[in-house]
C-alpha cells in the first residue's frame, strides 16, 4: 500500500483539531467513575464542571482547553506500507501548521532561547514525531497528542540507585504527585517510567501518561505497581484541581524497560484531565478516525 504525503498532511491537520475538541470515551468514563466515588462536595462540584465543559465543547464545536499544547504525532507503519519517511515528516509539520493557521489555533510553541513564536505550532524538532513499526498489514496509524503544558511541567526524573530499590520508585512517585498538587490540573493520569536509560525512562513516562484509561501495563510487575500506586495517590487528599477530595488521579500508568545493573531510574510525566488524543488509520479500505 502506497501512502501519499498529501493524505498525511490532510490527516495531520484534522487530527490536531479533532484531538483538541473531542475527549475519548475512556476519559469520559473515568470522570463518571471518579464522580461516583468522590466524597468531597467541592471535588464533586469541580468534576461536574469538567463534565459540563466536555458537553459545551461538543455542542459549540470548540476546543476543550485553551492550551493547544506541544503537538506530538506517534506514527506506526505496518508491513507492506510504502511511504517516503522524509516526506512523511514534512507533511505532518505542514498539516500541523495548516490546522494552526486555518482553524485558527493558538500557537503555543516558541524557540527555547529567543522565545520567538512562529505562529505555526511548529519549530525546531516540533511537532514531536515518533515513528515505530508494527506487524499489521497495509495499515499506517497516526496518534496525535496535544500535550498540555500545565501537566508537562509535572515531569520529573530521578536516577535512583539499586540500593533504593522499588521503595525509592514508589516514594518518588508519591512525592512528585504531592509536589505537583493542583498545578497539573488534576484529576490526572500519572505516567511512570521505570528502568531503561534516562531518556528512555522519560519517554516511557510519556507513553504511560497518554495510554487509554483501562489499559494495563503488559509487564506483570509493572501492572502490579500501577495498580498499587493508583490507589495510593488518591488517598493523599489532593483532589480535583488540588482543592481537596479523592479524585487526584484517574490512574497511575507504568511502563517498564530493562535497565543496567547500576541503574534504577524512575520518571514521572503527568497528563491533565483534558487527556486529549486522536488517531487515524490509513488502510486499503480507506481512512478511519478514532481515539
Amino acid at each position: 500500500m502506497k501512502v501519499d504525503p498529501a493524505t498525511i498532511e490532510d490527516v495531520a491537520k484534522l487530527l490536531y483539531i479533532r484531538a483538541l475538541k473531542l475527549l475519548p470515551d475512556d476519559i469520559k468514563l473515568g470522570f463518571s467513575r471518579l464522580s461516583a466515588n468522590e466524597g468531597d462536595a467541592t471535588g464533586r462540584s469541580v468534576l461536574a464542571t469538567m463534565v459540563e465543559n466536555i458537553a459545551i465543547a461538543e455542542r459549540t464545536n470548540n476546543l476543550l482547553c485553551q492550551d493547544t499544547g506541544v503537538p506530538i504525532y506517534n506514527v506506526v507503519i505496518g508491513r507492506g506500507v510504502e511511504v517516503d519517511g522524509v516526506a512523511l515528516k514534512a507533511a505532518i509539520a505542514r498539516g500541523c501548521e495548516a490546522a494552526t493557521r486555518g482553524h485558527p489555533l493558538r500557537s503555543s510553541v516558541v524557540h527555547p532561547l529567543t522565545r520567538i513564536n512562529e505562529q505555526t505550532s511548529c519549530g525546531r524538532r516540533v511537532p514531536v514525531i515518533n515513528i515505530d513499526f508494527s506487524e499489521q498489514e497495509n495499515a499506517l496509524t497516526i496518534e496525535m497528542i496535544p500535550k498540555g503544558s500545565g501537566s508537562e511541567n509535572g515531569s520529573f526524573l530521578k536516577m535512583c540507585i539499586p540500593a533504593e530499590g522499588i521503595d525509592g520508585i514508589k516514594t518518588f512517585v508519591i512525592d512528585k504527585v504531592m509536589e505537583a498538587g493542583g498545578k497539573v490540573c488534576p484529576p490526572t493520569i500519572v505516567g511512570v517510567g521505570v528502568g531503561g536509560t534516562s531518556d528512555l525512562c522519560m519517554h516511557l513516562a510519556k507513553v504511560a501518561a497518554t495510554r487509554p484509561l483501562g489499559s494495563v501495563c503488559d509487564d506483570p510487575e509493572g501492572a502490579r505497581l500501577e495498580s498499587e500506586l493508583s490507589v495510593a495517590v488518591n488517598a493523599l487528599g489532593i483532589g480535583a484541581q488540588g482543592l481537596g477530595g479523592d479524585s487526584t488521579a484517574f490512574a497511575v500508568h507504568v511502563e517498564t524497560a530493562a535497565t543496567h545493573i547500576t541503574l534504577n531510574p524512575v520518571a514521572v510525566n503527568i497528563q491533565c484531565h483534558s487527556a486529549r488524543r486522536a488517531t487515524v488509520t490509513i488502510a486499503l479500505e480507506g481512512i478511519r478516525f478514532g481515539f
Partner: protein
Amino acid sequence: MIHHHLVPPINEATARALHVGDTVTLDGALFGIRDATQIAMFDRKRKTQFDLRGHAVIHTAPNVRKVELSPENPAGFAPVCIGTTTSARMERFTRPLMAEEGVRLIIGKGGLGDASKAAFTEIGGAYLAVIGGTAALETTWIEAIEDVDFVDLDPECLWRFRINGFGPLLVGMDAHGESLYERVQAVANARRAEVLARLGVRS
C-alpha cells in the same frame, strides 16, 4: 460561605471582604496576562496603556481569530477559546501587579504561594480559582475582546475582555492569610507516611 457579585474596579475593603470558600461572579472588564506579559512589564519595564487599578486579571493566553474592526470586535480580535493556565509559574509577579499596577484580584488555577499570600494580606487582594481545562465553558462567559496591549507578544498580550457572568469562581486565597491550597497540602503531608507504609515502603 457568601456569594459575591463584583463589577471591577473594586476597592481594598471589597477585596478584604472576600474569604476562602466564598464564591464570586464577575461582570464588566477582565484583563488577560501571562508569563511573557509580566516579564515584559516587570523585568523589561514596559508600561501598559491600561489602568489596572482595582481590576481583576486572569492567567491566560487565548485562542483568537484576527478579524476586521467592528463594534463587536473593537480590537480586531474575536475570541475562539479562552481558558486559564497554571498560576504558580507567575508567583513572583503577584506583588508588583498589586503594588505597582493596583490589581486586586487574580484569577487562575492551581493556586499561588507564600509571596502572593503575603501580598494579598498586606495590600488587600484575593486569588479566585477557576476550574482549569474548562475553557469551552469559560469562553461562553466572554462577550468580546475590547482592547489589547503588547500585541507583539501574541498570544501572551495584555488582553482586555468584556465579560458577562464570569463564574462562579472559588476564593482560593484571601487577604486574611488563608489558602485552600495550603490546607490541602497540609492534609497530603499528614497522610504521606501512611500512604507509603501501605505501599510497603520501609521508613
